[in-house]
């Protein structure tokens, strides 16, 4: 078994894969990596499909006619076993003489006779690419057959021929006057001569019977002379054949005389051909040219490159999902998608309805359709720079090119290019999209692409062999099982491959995404500004004392002053999608000053902001200097209108946003624009390599030289709060373990409750929370921790922002919802700077976050989905099984209706006999022989009677007898 080649158009797939790999590098999107793995597994499957199909395909024998003339049509009978059709080529001395598809059993391949010569062995090369039709493998075998004498085409000029002298033993003399014969003498009487031919005068004169000798043309004998060693035996043989054929045509008998030797009588035209074929054989092997003189593309291993309409439509259908997938997140509506789909359909229609020579027409139509689609999609005003062009021009251009290519897609190669384009679009869309619909889109796109790639190569019904065999019922069930198994293996292979691929760190530095869907400037020199119309975020506390703080849905943490007892009524809307390799705190603000009830943001002088778009952020207060490049890349996709707060994982070192940004000393970043929904910006942070051991190694945290503001404790702080802090630090100096102890105490004694009671007026919020209500939410927990730490002399502050709650494993993004707005403590460590602590959110330390792989995450996601929707999945499976069962029952009913009850019995009988090795074409009586059972003979007889007897009448008794017999035969042995 050897590799025969790769079907034309495979290069497009490779190019698409490389393109997708580039997209993966540029965007760092997990979805594209998943697609790349699917591509790798498909390629492996495409390579393996051929050998698996070829392994069971075997050519057994070869036969052909024994006499032929060079160049004539000549059929070859090939006996082969091939579960799926394989393509075969018959070669004689290296020259191809016949080719075609082999079915199981005997197939006749039409071809032409080879050049003059005698042949008794031929080489058969049979090849297949399996169901996927991409990578072709071949096997070869040499077969001997009854010798084929291939005579030359008779020449124009015959070889010289002379009439042989009459021999005495001529034909019998008759009185038959038919024919233009002549009397040319007399001879003695021989047995068989008719009496009426006696030449009486001579008889009387001689005294013996003498008859009139008549010679007709067909009694003549001619000798054709052939010369050997002329240097051109083919020409000589052709001339000899012409001469001999002329003799034969006249009805004369012909002999051939080689170089004046003894004449050899050739009694039949077959003998003539055989002699000419065997005359000085010229054996010339057709050799392949050396590789440097071969066509660059090599030989197309695919015997047939025609694209059937069904395949063409499948290709068009496979393009719809990627296009919709790409256009939708770019803000295009149903109208645009409809235009593109119509253009795709037009391409399919034009290519299936036009003839091959109407290429110009197709090209013009394609150009026109491309202009229409391009004009519909491209909005030049949206393009303002390279980054926006990446987003606002390239996809449109790709879609347009794919539409135009659709008008050129007339063969399989074109179809593969179109599919590769669709695959590339899918990858592009997977790189652009971050929403949850991505998984479904990808699945649909991959499924349609897989279907289409099979549809363009699957042989049509004529090549699949003879009519519908009754045995297909069982084989199709087996086929379904095999196919399902193959899909499961492929999915497992994809996941297994992805299990070694780490989650991408992020996009390439070149293409860090950053754009504003709309520029809404605010007049705030480093101060907070709210996006007008944003229902969710920001704004100073209004109507103080109200539980809902900053209006419906607002979160007080994103304002200058945060009342710890307030928490907005926060919903489930997705606020941020963050493409990042690991979860972290997306910090928005920090608070330093506490007055017993509220935290207040540090005042900031403002001044000139820093021009973008590439911001290098200097260390803020308490940040340690880090000389290297930041390595934790996060891209924030803003899903709802946001204030001018830039969320970022601590500690941000570089921000990409085309706006003026103020770097506040408290670590917060504020822009001069609000962030409307649909915007994106990228932050590169340096995450200190925080680990439990490292933090513990920092030891005493109370005697650090830090500004007093981080140690400030409000006047109202109660003694019992301080006492509790002391108690939890075990009387010694506060260390990392003290923080843990405080968190544990809070975990044990405090109940997390979003409806915690509001402390009475004048009461200290921390004291009330710790000792009175003992119920609270993250703000109160964080505040209590911070105040207790400060009372021990440990520098601490409060940070607010978002924590990621969900992970979209397909898109590779972390999802933060409105209710994920959060407050946590930041404690200053001499070796690490500010370190976030939070007992309620489960964000691991940077140095301890486990390394994720895409495969691992996918498996986790699958497990989660299965666990979450167990009843649904079971329901769907039961429903599917019920549906399958129903389909089978309906199919059986339909078959019974179509075939009648006796027809069903007949089919069962055939299937049982075929299972025992009977030929599918055999009549019933021969099928019965397969069983060696009287019952079988009875069944065959009754079925024949049912089918062919004029006196047949249906009879319940007989039916039941035969039914029982067939059942017995099915189960026998």
């Amino acid at each position, binding site marked *: 078994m050897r590799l025969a080649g790769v079907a034309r158009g495979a290069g497009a797939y490779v190019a698409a894969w490389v393109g997708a790999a580039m997209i993966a590098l540029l965007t760092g999107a997990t979805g594209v990596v998943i697609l790349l793995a699917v591509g790798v597994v498909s390629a492996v499957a495409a390579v393996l499909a051929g050998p698996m199909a070829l392994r069971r395909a075997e050519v057994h024998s070869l036969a052909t*006619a*024994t006499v032929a003339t060079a160049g004539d049509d000549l059929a070859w009978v090939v006996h082969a076993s091939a579960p799926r059709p394989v393509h075969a080529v018959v070669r004689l001395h290296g020259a191809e003489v016949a080719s075609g598809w082999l079915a199981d059993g005997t197939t006749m391949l039409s071809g032409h006779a080879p050049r003059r010569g005698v042949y008794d062995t031929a080489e058969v090369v049979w090849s297949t690419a399996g169901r996927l039709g991409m990578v072709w493998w071949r096997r070869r075998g040499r077969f001997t057959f009854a010798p084929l004498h291939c005579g030359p085409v008779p020449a124009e000029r015959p070889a010289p021929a002379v009439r042989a002298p009459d021999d005495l033993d001529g034909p019998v003399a008759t009185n038959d006057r038919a024919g233009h014969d002549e009397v040319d003498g007399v001879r003695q009487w021989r047995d068989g001569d008719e009496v009426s031919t006696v030449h009486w005068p001579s008889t009387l004169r001689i005294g013996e019977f003498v008859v009139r000798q008549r010679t007709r043309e067909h009694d003549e004998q001619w000798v054709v002379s052939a010369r050997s060693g002329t240097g051109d035996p083919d020409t000589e043989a052709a001339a000899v054949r012409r001469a001999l054929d002329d003799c034969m045509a006249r009805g004369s008998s012909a002999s051939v005389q080689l170089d004046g030797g003894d004449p050899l009588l050739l009694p039949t035209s077959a003998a003539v051909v055989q002699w000419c074929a065997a005359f000085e054989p010229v054996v010339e092997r057709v050799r392949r040219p050396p590789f440097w003189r071969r066509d660059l593309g090599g030989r197309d291993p695919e015997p047939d490159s025609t694209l059937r309409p069904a395949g063409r439509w499948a290709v068009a259908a496979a393009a719809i999902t990627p296009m919709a997938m790409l256009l939708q997140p770019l803000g295009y509506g149903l109208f645009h998608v409809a235009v593109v789909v119509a253009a795709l359909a037009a391409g399919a229609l034009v290519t299936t309805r036009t003839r091959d020579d109407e290429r110009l027409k197709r090209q013009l139509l394609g150009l026109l359709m491309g202009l229409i689609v391009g004009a519909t999609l491209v909005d030049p005003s949206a393009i303002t720079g390279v980054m926006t062009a990446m987003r606002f021009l390239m996809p449109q251009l790709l879609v347009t090119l794919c539409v135009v290519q659709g008008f050129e897609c007339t063969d399989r190669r074109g179809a593969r290019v179109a599919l590769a384009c669709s695959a590339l679009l899918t990858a592009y869309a997977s790189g652009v999209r971050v929403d949850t619909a991505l998984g479904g889109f990808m699945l649909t796109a991959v499924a349609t692409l897989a279907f289409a790639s099979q549809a363009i190569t699957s042989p049509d019904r004529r090549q699949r062999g003879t009519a519908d065999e009754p045995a297909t019922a069982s084989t199709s069930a087996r086929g379904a099982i095999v196919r399902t198994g193959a899909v499961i293996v492929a999915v497992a292979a994809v996941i297994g491959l992805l299990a070694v691929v780490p989650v991408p760190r992020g996009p390439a530095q070149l293409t860090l995404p950053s754009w504003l869907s709309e520029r809404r400037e605010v007049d705030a020199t480093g101060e907070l500004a709210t996006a007008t119309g944003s229902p969710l975020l920001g704004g100073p506390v209004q109507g103080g004392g109200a539980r809902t703080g900053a209006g419906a849905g607002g979160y007080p943490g994103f304002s200058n002053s945060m009342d710890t007892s307030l928490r907005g009524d926060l919903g489930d809307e997705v606020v941020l999608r963050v493409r990042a390799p690991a979860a972290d705190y997306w910090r928005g603000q920090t608070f330093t000053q506490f007055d017993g009830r509220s935290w207040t943001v540090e005042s900031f002088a403002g001044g000139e902001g820093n021009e973008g778009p590439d911001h290098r952020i200097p260390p803020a207060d308490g940040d340690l200097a880090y000389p290297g490049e930041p390595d934790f890349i996060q891209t924030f996709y803003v899903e709802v209108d946001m204030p001018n707060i830039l969320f970022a994982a601590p500690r941000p070192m570089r921000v990409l946003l085309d706006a003026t940004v103020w770097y506040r000393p408290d670590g917060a970043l504020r822009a001069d624009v609000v962030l409307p929904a649909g915007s994106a910006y990228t932050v590169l942070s340096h995450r200190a390599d925080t680990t439990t051991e490292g933090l513990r190694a920092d030891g005493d945290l109370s005697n650090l030289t830090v500004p007093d503001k981080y140690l400030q404790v409000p006047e109202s702080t109660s003694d019992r709060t301080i006492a509790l802090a002391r108690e939890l630090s075990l009387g010694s100096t506060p260390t990392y373990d003290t923080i843990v102890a405080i968190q544990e105490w809070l975990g044990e004694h405090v109940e997390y409750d979003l409806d915690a009671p509001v402390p009475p007026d004048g009461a200290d919020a921390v004291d009330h929370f710790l000792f009175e209500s003992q119920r609270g939410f993250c703000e109160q927990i964080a505040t209590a921790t911070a105040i207790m730490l400060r009372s021990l002399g440990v520098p601490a502050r409060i940070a607010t922002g978002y924590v990621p709650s969900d992970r979209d494993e397909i898109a590779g993004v972390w999802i933060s919802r409105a209710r994920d707005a959060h407050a946590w403590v930041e404690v200053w460590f001499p070796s690490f700077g500010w370190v976030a602590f939070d007992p309620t959110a489960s964000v691991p330390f940077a140095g301890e976050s486990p390394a994720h792989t895409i495969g691992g995450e996918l498996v986790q996601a699958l497990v989660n989905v299965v666990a979450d929707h167990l009843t649904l999945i079971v329901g769907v499976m039961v429903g599917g099984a019920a549906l399958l069962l129903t389909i089978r029952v309906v199919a059986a009913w339909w078959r019974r209706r179509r075939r009648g009850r006796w027809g069903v019995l007949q089919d069962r009988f055939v299937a049982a006999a075929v299972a025992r090795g009977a030929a599918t074409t055999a009549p019933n009586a*021969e099928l019965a022989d397969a069983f060696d059972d009287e019952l079988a003979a009875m069944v065959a007889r009754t*079925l024949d009677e049912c*089918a*062919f007897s004029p006196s047949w009448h249906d009879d319940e008794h007989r039916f039941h007898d035969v039914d029982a017999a067939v059942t017995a035969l099915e189960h026998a042995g």
Partner: protein
Amino acid sequence: MPIDSRMTAVLSTDRALARTAAHEVAGRLVGAVGSVLAGRRDQIEVVTACVLAGGHLLIEDLPGVGKTLLAQSMAAAVGGSFARVQGTSDLLPADVVGSLAPNAEGLGLHFRPGPVFANVVLFDELNRANPRTQSALLEVMEEGRVTVDGAGHPVPTPFTVIATQNPIEMAGTYPLAEGVTDRFMAAISLGRADADEEVDVLTGRRGRTQLAEVSRVADLNALLVARESVATVHLAEPVARFAVDILRATRTHPRIRIGASTRAGVSMVALGRAFALMDGRDHVAPHDITRAAGCSLAHRVVVAGHERGAADELVAECLAAVPAPRR
């Protein structure tokens, strides 16, 4: 009930009765011939079917396997007259079909019938007779009459020619022309009896010694009625198509130069009908056709390259390639 359907019912009952009678006749014929000829039941059935179908039979085999015995015992069993012609190169048509001879009074000529005027004619070594004599058989075999000097003379009915030829010893023979072979409904080779049966022959329990014992198991009229019954065996449309497909397969097979003729198809179907009748059925089943094809096609097709003996194999290939009709 309308009159015509009642008639049909009556007719079909009659036909059923006739078929039953024919079935019995066939069984008795097979039994009678089988009592003489050792073994080879299959071939005896083909011969019987051939006689029932009104065809002629060509037996190709070596000398001494019982060809003549088979023909003689068949003649004895049907109770008709038997004649035998030995094929030689100087045998003239007149020697076979008859000739004009002077009247006893010496005035004018009268027709003196030849040996073909018998119910069963055994033409031994047909291929040794010259083509002219072979051709003399064409008319009598096809039309059942002999024309001498412009006057037709019908041969007795039933009329069956059983010809033999030796396929091995070909020297001094005239190979049968296609037109002649096409006249034979079936060609079989007898093959050798197995050991037990040969013992029977040597000890005299079977063989020529038993020929005298063969009693007439059917009279000629019963045979004629049986022949009519054969024609009433129903041939369903799918089975007829099957037969046509087989013929077509022989015509398109690459190793067959000349495929089976339409007359071959007629013979095949007639033989198939006889097989069905002998099996006691009122309809032709596909396996009757395949069985008939096995013995009625091979001698008619012309194999490319003159490979003798390959014809059987090729016909089997054609049969395997055509799917049999079923319910």
